[in-house]
């Protein structure tokens, strides 16, 4: 049986891609407001927990972990991982078109490679079928 995914499961994979990149971006925005944390001033990390951007970032990353685990429960690791890499592409595109940062030729090449990689995997089955041990057939 070739495993294909329902629309709801594609939404979970979309959540995996978006929550990781958006969460990282929120955290990085929040931590620039908090300022540099050194080993001597670890208390600053507690203060960071009061920053709304940091809190939103942590919530996003919790959402990422939940959707990542859900995806792993019905798809192969080698199917889900390229999807997580697609998050890097989302960050690069966000930084180009939203923050108007310069994206170098190398980064465009990297984006192209990741998109191709995700495309290869997305066209295949999402889960490896293991033959049932003898006597266990349903």
């Amino acid at each position, binding site marked *: 049986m070739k495993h294909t995914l329902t629309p709801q499961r594609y939404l979970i994979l979309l959540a995996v891609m978006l929550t990781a990149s958006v969460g990282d971006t929120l955290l990085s925005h929040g931590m620039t407001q908090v300022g540099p944390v050194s080993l001597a001033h670890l208390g600053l990390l507690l203060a960071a927990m009061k920053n709304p951007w940091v809190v939103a970032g942590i919530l996003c990353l919790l959402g990422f972990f939940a959707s990542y*685990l859900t995806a792993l429960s*019905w798809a192969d*690791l080698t199917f889900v*991982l390229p999807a997580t890499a697609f998050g*890097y592409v989302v960050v690069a595109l966000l930084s180009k078109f939203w923050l108007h940062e310069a994206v170098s030729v190398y980064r465009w*090449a990297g984006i192209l*490679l*990741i998109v191709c*990689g*995700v495309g290869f995997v997305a066209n295949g089955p999402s889960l490896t079928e293991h033959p049932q041990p003898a006597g266990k057939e349903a």
Partner: protein
Amino acid sequence: MTVASPFETWATIVTVAATAVAGDVLTAGAMRKIGDLDEIRAHSGLAGAIKAVVGSPMFLLGVLSMAASFFSLLFTLSNVDVSLAAPASASLTFLGNAVAAKLFLKENVDRRRWLAALFVCAGVFLLSK
């Protein structure tokens, strides 16, 4: 900022990647054992799904490996330039995961998935340029 010798540099980067691979493979293996989370949630609710995941020793071991990877990345970043350490460990993790998924999870890593792992590995490295 690089102060470490090439051996130290690559040893720490490989440690970050190896612990990350262990974390990913252990959590993926745990989720395969636990079964479809959507179905578990339909039967016993979100609390039941969370209990099934957190109660798995394999999952907890995976989280421990991820934590080890995080702290070894912090250690690496204090000795090695971030522009080398971050993309190199991320790329190695993608390749290592493909190998480990085939060996330990018995996933069918066909030519399509090998190509994807190589493309993503190279792509992640280029993104940092």
